[in-house]
């Protein structure tokens, strides 16, 4: 019998997590922001300029990240805090990071055997477009794309073990 760690390390398992990642994100946006994420009809040509990341460590190691533009992040803060988009500035990054944290937590709670054996880091938010993310041991990468209030949003899970 395979251990949970061995099962989680199996790259073919990762593809099966895509629906879980989609549902995890949809639930966070529906329950905490009161809106639905929808599927984009076509690829977006807009350039995301803000990224929230949460690290996972334990039975699953990796990074869950959400990328969008500032307007989307400000809208998230506005919806979560009940304030005008114009007033969201100071808290935009914190709110965006919390969204990422909740998506990561909700996702790991949906993966069998992972909820107890995986810890989350505090969220990190990067602004700007000119950066590359390197990991020496990446074993898999999942990405799901949505529209949030008509604006593009991508969520990716980079698996390191």
């Amino acid at each position, binding site marked *: 019998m395979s251990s949970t760690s061995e099962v989680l390390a199996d790259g073919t398992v990762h593809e099966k997590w895509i629906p879980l990642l989609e549902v995890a994100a949809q*639930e*966070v946006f*529906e*329950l*905490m922001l009161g809106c639905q994420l929808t599927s984009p009809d076509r690829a977006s040509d807009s350039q995301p300029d803000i990224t929230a990341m949460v690290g996972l460590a334990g039975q699953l190691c990796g990074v869950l990240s959400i990328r969008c533009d500032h307007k989307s992040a400000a809208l998230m*803060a506005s919806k*979560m*805090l*009940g304030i005008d988009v114009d007033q969201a500035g100071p*808290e935009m990054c*914190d*709110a965006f*990071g*919390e969204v990422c*944290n*909740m998506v*990561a*937590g*909700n996702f790991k*709670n949906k993966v069998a055997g992972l*909820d*107890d054996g995986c*810890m*989350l880091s*505090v969220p990190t938010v990067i602004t700007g477009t000119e950066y590359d993310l390197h990991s020496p041991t990446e074993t898999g990468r999942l990405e799901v794309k949505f529209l949030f209030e008509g604006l593009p949003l991508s969520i990716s899970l980079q698996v390191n073990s």
Partner: protein
Amino acid sequence: MNSIRALIVDDSSVMRKIVERSLVQAGLELAAVFGAGNGAEALSVLGANQVDLILCDINMPVMDGLEFVKQLPAVANAKDVPVVMITTEGSEAHVVQALSAGARGYIRKPFTPDQVKEHVIPLLAVKG
């Protein structure tokens, strides 16, 4: 129901505001809301203030939510105050740990105001 005094413990100031907003959306009238960034700060707040309800995250720096709940009985004016954990940690083991430590309720993020209401109102009603 009379207005209540609540303590919200979370290392994210944004999340404290979200929890406060959810209490209002749940129909609670808040006479006062105190905030703390970790368990140690929360114990300090309770040393100087009386509250009716505590909502607490688990993963926090300095002193986490489980340790805070364990230490709460030592605070004379807070030992009977109901604590509801609000956290991304969703495993049954975490729920059992929190309830064993003394928490009276457990809400998983993401959550709705209705879920907050469902967990909090009975505790306040029992407290009278």
